[in-house]
């Protein structure tokens, strides 16, 4: 409503006539070293381990270097790692780090920083929202749930250092097999977290400090007898070597919600609160379970598949072939963070007073819900390429306000998808005889908008197929106004007509092929999703008759849900309702608040719901097809097909990426023909970028490398 009115006023009195939407500065009015960006809201954190909001992802990439980082096309490029080797079986990945990378405090960045950060992400007390990114790494998820342990003593025929798996004390019911619950420990009263096998105490005060530092340099003192949790010990497979005088242990002390962590000489730890506890463990899934005590085992980081042969080489081992592993290394979970900062302030080291960064920028100021100020880092290895001295990100959580600020020239560009749909007809040319403003750019986005069907409620396959076939998706962009790409395919990508010749060849299609394709390695590897069940009203009625003959129609109108608040969701709901009514399927629509909708769909308590899926990197399986696996915790529609499972397993065992794509495509075809989901369109991203902003690369995953931007005061004469 607010936006609608703003638009009326905008159109009524001030729709500018020129080529650009709003004021455009030039010449001396521009500061060529300062870029002002209207970000989409307030970042939740700038710590890569804890940040999970969209508003934080580009700031994190600007502040923290990764083994790889985002290239202009959104695909990973070498950064902290200069090169890497991928083993033929796609299970071992060796990265070689540059030696000139520095933290902003001057310390060199090493492979230990990468490993220690991963251990922090994987630790249950960190509660990192990004921990699932580590799932392919051997032992990472089991470390989080304390399922995988390492023997500290030789008992029951096991040797010191043996990696063992904890056997659940009681069957954990219907919990999905790849999503172990942490509740299976009998010593967890009232649903409290189970006692950690790594709890320790000390008889003397523990002086938490940096590795090897003197006791007087401690920044926190743990009182005697207070439990701490041991996270890692020096001299492990991927931990720092022990200083002279023996091993040190890194412990976490939860003195409050923030807590504190630090190194202490390992010999100072003695008490074992869970020492007498009886545990069942086994060496391999097939081995017999044996009984050990809490004091015999530890949740060592050695159980995680990471090795450090030398300080500038890190090796990751995955449990299964992981063809997309290199793509994970630019994600937040794998960007290294400085242990000296997060030890002292585990939840607040990302504030200006405490932060230590490694990327193109450092943090100068962070005014909550107002702006984040970055300045060029004097220690970044590639600082000569960073042309901006200052980068300001305004936290704009209201789309209309963000667009208004851009219009008045208060920001130089807006984050993707921060233009209200009510403004779009004025900007995209619909209201100016097709003349879109030149500073408005639309690009495809790796996301898909769909109607997700609860297949245990709507069990009849013919009915679901009728639902999919009844929708003419080409009409949808007419009321979403953002150039969305109507699609009956699940996996999103770039429209085939927009691909380069090299990518067309890699995809094995011609420019005339309809639909989208997902380029995974430029000019080399590409996934073309199967066509899906596109609009065919005759076929829809036929499927409906088949469903009726089988008695598969519900005796009530089907309920379609959407989340309230966005006008487009409502319009699409009404459009789908009308389309389904046309073929004879009565549907009623219900609006729900977002949190309730997520809760209900997660429990499977719905019939059809609007939802969407957005990919973080270009891979069909990890981000999209995995949603339809029987055991996936994200399988809201409860779809479960033996054929689909078999093909997905087959694809995951393949190390040849082309062959894998072919099997994935067959799997997607099986699934989409069963219609557990009705894809509607591929998302687009809408950018407003002033003409003097150069080097702002939009890409499929919306990860523009913002540090490559520069401001051109003479833009008009170039």
């Amino acid at each position: 409503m607010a936006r609608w009115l703003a638009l009326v006023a905008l159109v009524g009195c001030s729709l500018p006539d020129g080529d650009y939407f709003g004021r455009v500065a030039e010449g001396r009015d521009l500061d060529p070293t300062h870029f002002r960006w209207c970000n989409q809201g307030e970042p939740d954190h700038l710590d890569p381990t804890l940040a999970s909001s969209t508003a934080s992802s580009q700031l994190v990439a600007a502040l923290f270097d990764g083994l790889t980082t985002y290239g202009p096309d959104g695909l990973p490029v070498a950064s902290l790692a200069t090169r890497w080797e991928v083993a033929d079986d796609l299970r071992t990945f060796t990265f070689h780090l540059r030696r000139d990378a520095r933290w902003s405090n001057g310390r060199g960045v090493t492979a230990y920083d990468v490993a220690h950060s991963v251990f922090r992400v994987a630790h249950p007390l960190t509660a990192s929202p990004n921990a699932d990114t580590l799932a392919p790494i051997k032992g990472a998820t089991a470390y989080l749930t304390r399922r995988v342990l390492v023997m500290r003593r030789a008992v029951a025929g096991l040797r010191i250092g043996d990696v063992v798996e904890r056997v659940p004390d009681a069957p954990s019911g219907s919990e999905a097999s790849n999503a172990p619950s942490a509740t299976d420990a009998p010593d967890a009263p009232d649903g409290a977290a189970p006692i950690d096998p790594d709890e320790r105490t000390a008889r003397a005060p523990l002086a938490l400090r940096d590795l090897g530092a003197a006791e007087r340099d401690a920044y926190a003192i743990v009182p005697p007898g207070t439990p701490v949790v041991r996270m890692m010990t020096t001299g492990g497979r991927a931990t720092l070597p022990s200083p002279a005088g023996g091993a040190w242990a890194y412990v976490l002390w939860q003195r409050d919600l923030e807590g504190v962590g630090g190194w202490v000489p390992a010999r100072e730890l003695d008490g074992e609160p869970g020492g007498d506890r009886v545990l069942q463990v086994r060496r391999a899934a097939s081995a017999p379970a044996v009984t050990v005590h809490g004091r015999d085992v530890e949740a060592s980081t050695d159980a995680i598949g990471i090795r450090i042969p030398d300080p500038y080489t890190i090796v990751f081992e995955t449990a299964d072939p992981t063809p997309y592993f290199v793509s994970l290394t630019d994600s937040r979970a794998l960007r290294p963070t400085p242990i000296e900062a997060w030890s002292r302030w585990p939840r607040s080291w990302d504030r200006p007073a405490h932060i230590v960064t490694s990327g193109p920028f450092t943090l100068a100021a962070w005014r909550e819900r107002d702006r984040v100020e970055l300045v060029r880092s004097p220690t970044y290895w590639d600082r000569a390429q960073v042309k901006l001295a200052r980068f300001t990100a305004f936290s704009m959580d209201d789309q209309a306000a963000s667009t208004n600020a851009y219009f008045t020239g208060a920001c130089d560009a807006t984050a993707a998808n921060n233009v209200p749909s009510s403004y779009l007809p004025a900007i995209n040319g619909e209201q100016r005889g097709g003349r879109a403003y030149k500073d408005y750019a639309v690009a495809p986005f790796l996301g898909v908008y769909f109607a997700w069907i609860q297949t245990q409620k709507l069990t009849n396959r013919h009915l679901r197929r009728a639902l999919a076939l009844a929708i003419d998706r080409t009409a949808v962009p007419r009321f979403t106004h953002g150039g969305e790409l109507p699609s009956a395919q699940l996996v999103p990508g770039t429209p085939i007509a927009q691909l380069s010749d090299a990518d067309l060849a890699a995809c094995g299609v011609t420019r005339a092929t309809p639909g989208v394709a997902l380029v995974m390695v430029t000019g080399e590897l590409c996934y073309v999703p199967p066509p899906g069940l596109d609009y065919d009203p005759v076929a829809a009625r036929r499927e409906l008759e088949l469903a009726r003959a089988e008695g598969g129609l519900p005796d009530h109108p089907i309920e379609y849900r959407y989340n309230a608040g966005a006008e487009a969701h409502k319009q699409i709901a009404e459009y789908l309702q009308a389309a389904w009514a046309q073929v004879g399927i009565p549907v009623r629509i219900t609006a729900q608040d977002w949190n309730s909708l997520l809760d209900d769909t997660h429990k499977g308590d719905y019939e059809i719901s609007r939802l969407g899926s957005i990919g973080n990197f270009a891979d069909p399986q990890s981000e999209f097809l995995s949603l339809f696996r029987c055991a996936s915790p994200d399988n809201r529609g409860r779809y479960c097909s033996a054929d689909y499972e078999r093909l997905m397993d087959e694809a995951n065992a393949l190390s040849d990426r082309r062959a894998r794509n072919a099997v994935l495509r067959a799997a997607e075809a099986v699934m989409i023909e069963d219609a557990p989901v009705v894809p509607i369109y591929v998302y687009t991203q809408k950018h407003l970028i002033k003409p003097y902003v150069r080097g702002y690369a939009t890409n499929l995953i919306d990860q523009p490398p913002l540090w490559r931007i520069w401001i051109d005061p003479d833009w008009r004469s170039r």
Partner: protein
Amino acid sequence: MTGWLRLAGGRLVASVAILVAVATASFWLLHAAPGGPFATDQPRSAAVARAMEDRYGLHQPLWRQYGRAMARLAHGDLGVSMKRDVSVAGLIAEHGPISAVLGLLGLAVAVIAGVAIGVVAAWRRDTWIDRGVMLGALIGISVPAFVLGPLLIASIALDLGWLPAARIDGARSLILPAITLGMIYLGTVARLTRGGMLDVLDQDFIRTARAKGLPEWRVLAKHALRIGIAPVVTYLGPATATMISGSFVVERIFQIPGLGTYFVTSVTDRDYPVVTGVFVFYAALLVVLNLAVDLAYGMLDPRTRDLGARTRDAGGRARDAGAPAGGTRR
């Protein structure tokens, strides 16, 4: 004196009871709503979700979580935001002053313009001036902030380019939000002022003042307004609490990092400690400002200056808020 003490003691007990009730209601109502602070549409395994929830003890029985929250509150600790990892008290300290400044500016707009309009309307009652300004006030009451704000932005910021369209950046950027916020209350203040003034202007002491030959502006400003403004003062107590604790709509339209936003987002985010924190804070503001209204009453109207005497009167109530216009006639 004992009357005053009894009043203060009673007020204190009632205030604590109110705060406990607000904290209790916000806790149980929000926990009754489906979902939680860590709900997401992005893939997330049960193990990771569990680790995030365990950090805040969300799997403990509700009565125990409630007990902990209340024990924390009793120690003056509002807890930590589950979504943002910052203390709720810090959040109020960071964003509260921004809302307070904006609220006071809005209040100034509402009171200065509203009282002036009300006085003029009462003074020229039943003329076209009266009807004209009161119609304007009615429109002011009726046009919501989410209409007025965008209209002001479109005309003054986007079209004319005189003022910023969004964000707080210098004093100029406060003008449009203050007007938008003030207009919500301006109409009501004008109507209350007019009503109060009409009651007073008929009374004997006004006639006396006029008979003494005082200029009309002094009669209005010095004698009539002091009494006639009473209903406005009564209304301003809770209105001030609402204004200085921030408006979700105004803060959103103008992108102001104030406190008002949290009254809505903490609920939609299911950020339990923030919900309890901001609502308890708001309730405390209401309690304090209502007390301030009582004190202001005594100062404005000499006839009610003896607070002790007022507590002994029939209703036992410290103020006659229920009947603003008639309250001064005793």
